């Protein structure tokens, strides 16, 4: 219903785009082209606030069916294997040297980190850190951090480690390998080709003490040490031939990889030698690889999988079909995908007026409604919370600046659909006829099955006004998209739509995507044409250790970025709903900062509530 509204509106836009075969074909190919409604290019944008909400009784009823997040630890029984699933296999099992993040994701089950994120108790986590491998830490100087390791942390009881204590040499070995081989090394390590990296060195002071030297006071450092995509600690024997880390694992965390069949399944079992094993409730997790959505949904319905990422548009109906399913609402996500521009010399997108005009053509409410099913949830009485992304995700509580609020300043206008003003901006920039260029996105499933539709809608919205005439390009993800768009530092023609990496701290996103020296930057042609003000603001905030001051600095940067519209952030989001079977004890009670960081803090607290089992 709500989903169709974009396509209904696009009926008139189709008429305007009769010359654009690719767009027409694209809309039709989705099978969602509407047959009614209308309006024209100057139609009023959709206002989600005007969508009628359910009456009080319906809302109360919907609220009452949300999972109560009851802490049942006191009555928990130990044992049983959680039946989970995943959609993709890993490239290999070495999180520090794999060319893909998938190894980090798997590694978070068995390789510990120095720190961990404190889980939220019935509320979303805030990103605060707690000890994991490190028992304690101190920061005697702004540029020096000392970690004391747990004396009782040991590696798995398997050759060649056989319960050897995890020591400072393992941490230093892992850091050295990370700085040399990890795909994210430039986010942290100071290197010859990355002089801005905050971490200068890690040194083993004694068996249980690690000293980290920072190049400058780096506010998010502790958070970075808790992040699963950075420093996972591996045994040094993994390098010296003790075992092949690409295909084998030696756990130092709560779970052991007991069985792995490529393309088929992962099986994790409780590590009896984990220092906190007595507080791990489940015996393990079975995680078959189910790439097909329909197959996964069938397994979920048949209760062979206990939780499943049901598409938002199917949540309400599935809950009606299977009323015993539990439903919970997630916190706002902290990733913000992007529409970014080729910045080769001579490109129209070097002019911020063109970029701002493009942003003004996006109907954010309509886009959010289309992909988050907001109107339908609202009508059914489910709680929704629609937020626009600024140049950081709307999920960064505290630091996110609402583009709809007056605090955004003059940049606020760039987040509002306004075709007339967009046209004026383009005319002022010297463009009196439509800008003809390419728009690229991957049509394959690496970013999920919804992503190509989202990109297509963005293209449609840009073209709807007649101010842009775009040729759709669908590059191959590995060979074309990554090297020629995503990592090209502006060296491409036209516009690209893509995903962005999830980070534990907003600084890493700011630096990586917006600083001229960032590894994934989309703001500067080859790092040569520099927005010095933006760079300086980004550098300043990462060195500010006063939280309140730093938050204000990040907000100031968002205001600045909004006036320049360096890139167009994804329109926005509403918290997603999830469905699961009610026998997962403590589900939603201990809430992880991100999915991968909770293996030692939230997964260890789950238990199998046999009294509710109906499988």
């Amino acid at each position, binding site marked *: 219903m709500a989903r169709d509204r974009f396509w209904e509106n696009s009926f008139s836009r189709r008429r305007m785009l009769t010359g654009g075969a690719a767009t027409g074909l694209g809309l039709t190919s989705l099978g969602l082209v509407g047959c009614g409604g209308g309006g024209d290019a100057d139609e009023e944008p959709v206002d989600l606030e005007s969508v009628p909400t359910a009456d009080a009784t319906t809302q109360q009823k919907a609220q009452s069916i949300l999972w109560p997040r009851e802490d049942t630890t006191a009555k928990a029984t130990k044992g049983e294997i959680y039946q989970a699933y995943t959609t993709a296999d890993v490239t290999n099992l070495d999180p520090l040297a794999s060319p893909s993040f998938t190894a980090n994701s798997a590694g978070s089950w068995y390789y510990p980190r120095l720190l961990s994120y404190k889980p939220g108790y019935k509320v979303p986590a805030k990103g605060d850190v707690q000890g994991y491998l490190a028992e304690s830490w101190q920061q005697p100087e702004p540029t020096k951090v000392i970690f004391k390791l747990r004396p009782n942390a040991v590696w798995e009881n398997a050759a060649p480690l056989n319960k050897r204590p995890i020591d400072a040499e393992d941490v230093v070995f892992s850091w050295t390998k990370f700085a040399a081989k990890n795909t994210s090394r430039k986010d942290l390590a100071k290197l010859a080709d990355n002089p801005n990296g905050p971490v200068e060195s890690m040194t083993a002071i004694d068996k249980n003490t690690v000293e980290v030297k920072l190049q400058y006071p780096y506010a998010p450092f502790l958070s970075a040490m808790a992040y699963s995509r950075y420093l996972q600690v591996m045994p040094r024997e993994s390098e010296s031939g003790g075992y092949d880390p*690409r295909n084998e694992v030696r756990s130092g965390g709560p779970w052991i990889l007991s069985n792995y069949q490529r393309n088929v399944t992962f099986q994790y079992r409780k590590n009896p030698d984990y220092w906190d094993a007595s507080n791990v409730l489940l015996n393990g997790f079975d995680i078959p*690889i189910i790439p097909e959505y329909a197959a996964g949904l*069938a397994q979920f319905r048949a209760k062979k999988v206990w939780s499943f990422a049901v598409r938002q548009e199917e949540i309400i109906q599935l809950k009606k079909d299977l009323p015993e399913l539990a439903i919970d609402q997630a916190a706002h996500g902290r990733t913000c995908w992007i529409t970014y521009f080729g910045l080769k010399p001579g490109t129209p997108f070097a002019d911020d007026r063109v970029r701002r005009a493009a942003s003004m053509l996006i109907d954010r409410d309509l886009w959010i409604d289309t992909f988050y099913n907001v109107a339908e949830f609202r009508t059914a009485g489910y709680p929704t919370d629609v937020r626009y992304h600024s140049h950081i995700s709307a999920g960064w509580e505290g630091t996110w600046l609402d583009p709809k609020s007056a605090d955004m300043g003059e940049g606020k206008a760039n987040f509002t659909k306004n075709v007339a003003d967009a046209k004026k901006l383009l005319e002022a920039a010297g463009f009196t006829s439509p800008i003809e260029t390419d728009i690229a996105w991957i049509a394959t499933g690496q970013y999920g099955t919804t992503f190509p539709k989202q990109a297509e809608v963005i293209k449609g919205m840009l073209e709807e006004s007649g101010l842009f005439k775009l040729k759709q390009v669908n590059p191959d993800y*590995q*060979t074309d998209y990554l090297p020629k768009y995503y990592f090209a530092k502006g060296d491409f023609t036209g516009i690209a739509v893509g995903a962005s990496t999830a980070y534990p701290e907003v600084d890493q996103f700011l630096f990586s995507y917006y600083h001229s020296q960032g*590894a994934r930057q989309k703001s500067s042609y080859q790092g040569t044409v520099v927005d010095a003000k933006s760079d300086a603001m980004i550098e300043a905030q990462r060195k500010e250790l006063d939280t309140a001051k730093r938050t204000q600095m990040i907000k100031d940067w968002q205001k600045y970025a909004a006036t320049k519209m360096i890139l167009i952030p994804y329109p926005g989001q509403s918290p997603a709903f999830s469905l699961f079977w009610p026998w997962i004890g403590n589900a939603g009670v201990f809430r992880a900062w991100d999915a991968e960081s909770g293996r030692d803090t939230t997964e260890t607290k789950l238990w199998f509530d046999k009294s509710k089992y109906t499988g």
Partner: protein
Amino acid sequence: MGRYVTQRLLLAGLTLVLVSIIVFTLLRVIVPLVYGDAVDIIAAEYGGTDPELVQDLKDDYGLSDALVPQYLRWVGSILRGDLGESLFNGRPVSKEIQDRLPVSVELGLVGLISSVIFSVPLGIAAAVAQNRWPDYFLRTSAILVDSIPGFWLAIMIITFGSVWFNWAPPLRFEYLHDDPMTHLKIMALPALLIGLTPSGSLIRLVRTQMLEVMRQDYIRTAHAKGLSGRAVVISHAVRNAILPVVTVIGLSLPGLIAGTAIFESIFSLPGMGQYLVSSVGNLDYPVIMATVFIFSVLIVLSNLAVDISYTIIDPRIRL
């Protein structure tokens, strides 16, 4: 007979040499030119397109040498039974194939056998009942089976199985030698669905061949001799009609084995198809070259088996 088989074996060997040259040229020359190189993918994942990094990676993976030495090294390795290692995880390809090929062969073989068991009798029945309602029904059904993609049917069965019967296929794969019953439960449905794919064509082919044979003089003679209809069909018609059918069946087998990827994905099976598909995504040369070569060997062997079976089914071929 011996000369015939020797000739076919020599031709098979020559074919494999040609296949190895084509596979190598495609993967190491054509694909990098028009599509991309594995080292570019790995370099991109590391966040750089730095030529030095690319060169280092090429050196690491032995891709810097001239193509002819690379080809000779690859062929030499194959002859020694070494199919190389994956660029992305370092696993020996021969070990992976050793684990996965039996799964795919089993799927393809069971699928083909089930297809033959159903299709041949139904094709014969359609021919015998030509232009009557069983024939119309079977022909329509055959076209229907031809039109339905097997993977779509698999998803429908799984979806409605879960909605109506709270059923879903087993998730945990077990090898035949570890747990035969569970293995059977896991493999039965995908194998039958794989077998369904060629069934429609097979029914129609058997029917056509039977009709052609049934019009021959010797069939009329057999009827004139007073043989029963059943005896004429079974003893005289089927054997002569089956030759082209055997060709199609034989040549279908490698296709069925190689074409199991989507079923392996839907049913979470560790076969060759998924292995090849995931490697193609990464342009993991050693894996792609080895698996394509193995599939080529299967095709050549199937052809050989078909050729030899001719001599058994039709003795005239020995002459």
